[in-house]
C-alpha cells in the first residue's frame, strides 16, 4: 500500500541544512493501522506530510498503491489526495465559513461525486451529529468539531486515513470517544490508518508502532 524508501528531508536553517528526516524506509500494508510516535521535533509530522503528499521530499521515494508521489506535481498530488487520502488534524481544520454539513460535503464536491448531500448526512449521523448539521464550526465544541472532521475524512471513502494528533486539542474523555469512533469507522470502512501521536494509549491501539528519534526510524 505505502512504500517509502530512503526518505530524506532537509531544510535550510541559518545558513546550514537542517536534516529533519534521515533516510526513512518503511512499508505499510493495506488495512493496517500504524502509529508514528516520538518526541517533539523528532520529525513525526514531517514524515506524515511526506507520506500524505502534502510536502516534497529532498530525496527518496514514496509510493502509494504503486503511484510515485514524487513524480506528481502539486496539482497531481492534490487530485491523488482527493481520491485516496483522508485527514484528521489536531486543530480540526474545518472551514469556518461552511456549516458542518457543507464541510463534510466539500471533499465530495471537489471530486464531483453524486448524491453528495445524502452521503454527507449519512456520515454526520454516523458520528452522532445528525441534529447539528446546520451549525457552523464556531458553534460546536472541540469534540463535536473533531467528529465533523472524522465524518469529512471518511465520507470520501479514502483508502488511507492520516491522523495528526487527533486528540491533541481535546480533554481525555472526549479524546477517548473520538478514538473509539475513529477505530470503529476504520474497521467498518477497511481503511488503512496512519496516525501521529504522543499518546502511548492511543498508539497501543494500533497494530504497529514506528518510533522516530531525531529523524531516524527506531523499530518498536
Amino acid at each position, binding site marked *: 500500500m505505502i512504500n517509502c524508501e530512503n526518505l530524506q528531508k532537509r531544510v535550510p536553517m541559518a545558513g546550514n541544512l537542517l536534516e529533519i528526516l534521515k533516510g526513512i524506509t518503511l512499508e505499510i500494508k493495506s488495512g493496517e493501522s500504524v502509529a508514528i510516535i516520538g518526541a517533539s521535533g523528532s520529525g513525526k509530522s514531517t514524515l506524515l506530510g511526506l507520506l500524505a503528499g*502534502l510536502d516534497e521530499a529532498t530525496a527518496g521515494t514514496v509510493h502509494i498503491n504503486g503511484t510515485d508521489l514524487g513524480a506528481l506535481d502539486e*496539482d497531481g498530488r*492534490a*487530485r491523488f489526495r482527493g481520491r485516496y487520502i483522508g485527514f484528521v488534524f489536531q486543530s480540526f481544520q474545518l472551514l469556518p465559513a461552511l456549516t458542518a454539513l457543507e464541510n463534510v460535503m*466539500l471533499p465530495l464536491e471537489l471530486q464531483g461525486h453524486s448524491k453528495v448531500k445524502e452521503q454527507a448526512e449519512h456520515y454526520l449521523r454516523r458520528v452522532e451529529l445528525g441534529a447539528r448539521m446546520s451549525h457552523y464550526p464556531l458553534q460546536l465544541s472541540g469534540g463535536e468539531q473533531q467528529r465533523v472532521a472524522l465524518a469529512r475524512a471518511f465520507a470520501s471513502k479514502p483508502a488511507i486515513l492520516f491522523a495528526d494528533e487527533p486528540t491533541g486539542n481535546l480533554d481525555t474523555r472526549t479524546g477517548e470517544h473520538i478514538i473509539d469512533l475513529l477505530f470503529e469507522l476504520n474497521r467498518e470502512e477497511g481503511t488503512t490508518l496512519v496516525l501521529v501521536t504522543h499518546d502511548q494509549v492511543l498508539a497501543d491501539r494500533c497494530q504497529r508502532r514506528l518510533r522516530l528519534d531525531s529523524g531516524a526510524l527506531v523499530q518498536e
Partner: protein
Amino acid sequence: MSMTATRMLARDWRGGELGVLVLALVLAVGVVSGISAFTTRLQSALVQESHRFLAADYVVSSGRALPQEWLPEAEARGLQQALALLFPSMVYAGEDAMSLASIKAVSEHYPLRGELTYSTEPFGEILPARAGPGRGEVWLDSRLFPLLQVAVGDRITIGEADFVVAAAARTEPDQGSSFWSFGPRVLMHYDDIPATGVVQPGSRVEYRQLYAGSQPALESFGRWLQPQLQDGQSAVNVDEGQPGIGSALARAESFLLLAGSLAVVLAGVAVALAARRFSERHHDYVAIIKSLGATSKTINRLYGSSLLLLGSVATVLGCVLGWALQALFFQLFAEQLPVQPGPSGMRPYAIGATTALTCLLCFAWPPLRRLAQASPLRVLRRDLPLENRRAIGDYVLGLLAVTVLMWWYSQDWKLTLAVLAGLAVAAGLGFCLALVLLRGGRLVGMSAGSIWRLALSGLQRRGAANALQVVIFAMAIMMLLILLLVRTSLIDEWQAQLPADAPNHFMVNIGPEDVTAIEELLRAEAIPSEPFYPMIRGRIMSVNGQELPATEKVQEDRRQRETNFTWSDTLPADNQLVAGQWWAPGTDQALVSLEQGFAERLQIEVGDTVGFLVGSQPLEAQVASIRKLQWQSMRPNFFLILPPRLLASYPATFMTSFHLAADDKEFLNRFIRDFPTVTVIEMDIVLQQIRTIVNQVSAAINLVLVVILAAGALVLVAGVQASVDARMHESAILRALGAPRRLILGGLLIEFATLGLFAGLLATVAAELSVYMLQSKVMEMNYAPTPWIWPLGVLSGTVIIGALGVFSCRKVVSTSPLTVLREL
C-alpha cells in the same frame, strides 16, 4: 463550486472581511461614473450654451442673398431652420420723430437655440418669448421709445410699411458684437421685408440661415455645404469667444476630473490593501481545501468567481451611487443652468465598470492568485510563511493600471502626470525617509519609559512594512490635502473675480460732449463707475506691410478684422504686461499695445508694424507691448490701446461700466430719456447667473470632496487593518504575560500615532508640490504657499491614524488573550 464561492463570500461578508473591499469598489465606481456623467452632461450644457450665442448650432451668413436650395437639403437631413436678415434703416414715428435703427427681421422659428426676451414696457420685467414679432408688428429697443416718443400700441414706419409697436425688445441670443456698431434694435417679421421696400440690391445687409439639429446631421450638412461656400459666405458652428460661465465651469470640470482621478487611485490602493489582507486570512482555508484534493485550478476558479461576483455586485451598486451623485448635482443646479443638460449616455457607467474591473484585475487579483500556491502543509504546520511576496510585477501592473485609468478618465496627460509625480515623490522619497525616521525613533526610544520602548521597538521591528504603511497613509492624506487646497483656492478665486459690487452695466456710444454730464450724473446718483474710455472702431489690415487675407472664413484666425481701439497713457488697472514695455506718457510715437490672444491669433510680436483703417483713414503703428486681460472683470477691455496723441484726430465715442443695484433699475429710464443716443447694456442678469452657478458648482465640489474623503478614510482603515493582525498577535501574547491594558493600548497608540505623524509630514510636502504643479501647469491659476496645511496635515495624520489604530485593535484588551490567539 459556485455554491462554495457564494457561501464563502456570504460568510466573509458577515465576518466583515469584505466590507472594505466592496466599499472601496463601490466608491470607486460611484465617484468615477458620477463625476463622469456629471461632466459629460455639463459639457453638453456648455456646448449648448455656446450655441445659444449663435441662436443656432450652425449659421451661414453673407452680404448677398443665400441660395434657397440649401434649405431643403438641410430639411432632408432633419435640421430645423430659421432665417434672419439684418440691416440698418431709418425708423419714423409721428410727424418728425426718427432714428437710425439696427433692424433684424426673423422668421417664426427664430431663435433655434437660446432665448429671445421682451418686456411689455421699456426696461420693464424681462419675459421669455416663444417667437419674435408677428406679421405687421415690431419690438423696439427700450431706448427707442423716448427717441421716437412712442409707447406700446403706437405705430411706426419703416420704409413704405407701417407697424404696430407690440413690445420692448430686450435680449436676443445672438446679439453678439453687432450692437457695438449699429443703432438700437428693431425686431420685425421676416415676411414683412418686401412690404418695406428698403432692401434693394446693393443695400448694406446681412443674410443669415440658421440651422439646429443632431450632431451627426449637422456634421453631414456641414460637409455637404462647406465646398459650396463662395467668397463672402461664411459658416460658423461654434462661438469663438468663451462665455463667462464657460470658463468657471471648465475649471470646475478639471477639478472634478482631478477628484475623480484621485478617487480611482485611492480606491485602487484600498482594494489592493483589502485584497491582500483577505488573501492572507484565506491561506489556511486554501491549505485545507488543497489537503482535501483541490487543485490550483479549482482554487483559482473559486476565488476568481468570488471576485467576479463581488465585482458585479459592487459595480451595480457603484453605478447606482454614481447615478444618484450626478442626479444630486443637477438637482442642485438645474434651475440655474441656462440650458437643459443633455443625457450622459452609457459611457460614464462603462468607465465605472471598467474601473471596477481594472481594480479587481490589477489590484485584487494578484494577491488572490497567489493563494493557489499556498502550501497544503500549513494544515500540519501553521508556522509556515505565507505566500505573499509581492512580485515587482504587481507594482508595475498597479502603476500602469492607475496611469491608464487616470488618463482615460481625465483625457489629460498633464493632470495625470502631475498627480503621478506627487505620488512618486510621496512613495519614493517617503519610503526612504520613513525608514530613516523610524530608525531615528528607535534610538530616541531606547532611553524612554516602557510604553515608548514597546511602541518604538514595534515600529523598528517591522521597519520595512511600517515604511510602506507610512507611504500608503501619506498618499491618502496627500490626495485629500491636494483636493482641499485646490478647492479652496478655486472657490476663493471665483469669488474674488466677481465681487458683489462688480460693474454690471456697460454704457457705450457716449458722445464726447456727453462725457462730463454723464460723469456728473453718476456721481450725483452715487453710482460707482469705471473710468470713461474712448472707443474707436477700426479694421486691422496688414502686418509688417503684408496685407492680411480678407476672407470671412472663421477657420482662418489670421485675417483682417474689425475691432475697437482705445487710447491711454497708462496701463489699465487689471491689465498685465507680458511682453514689451509701456510707453512714456505724452509720447507722439506711433505705438500700439495688443491683447495676448489677439496677438497670438494674428501671429504678431513686439516690434512688428501693424496697419489699420479707421473710417477711411489709414494708420500704422509699431507693437510696443502685449497685455494679458481679465475678461471676467466686467470692466471695459480692449484688444488694442494706442497713445492718446496718435488717435486725437480720429472721431471717438466713449464707454464705461458701472454697478447698479437691482432696486435702482428705474435710473435707466430717466437716463435714456436724458441721453437717448447712449446704449446701455444690461449684464446684471448674466452676472447673477454666473454667480449662482459658481455657488452651485462650489456646492457640487464640496459634495465630491466629502465622497473622496470617504475614499481616503477607507484607505486609512484598510491600511490600519492590514497591520492589525500582527499587532494583535503580539499584544495578545503580552497580555497573556500580564501586561496591563494601559501599557498595551498606550503602546499601540504611540505606534500608530508615530506612523500617522510621519505620514502627515510626508503628505504635506508632497501635497504642496503637487498643488504647485497642478495650479501653475494644469489649471493655470496662481500658486501661493499655504502654511495652514502644515499643522493640519501633520496633526490630522497623527490623530486619525492613532485613533483608527487603537480602535481597530481594541479587541485585544476587551477579549481574552486565548480567544485572540485562537482566532488569528
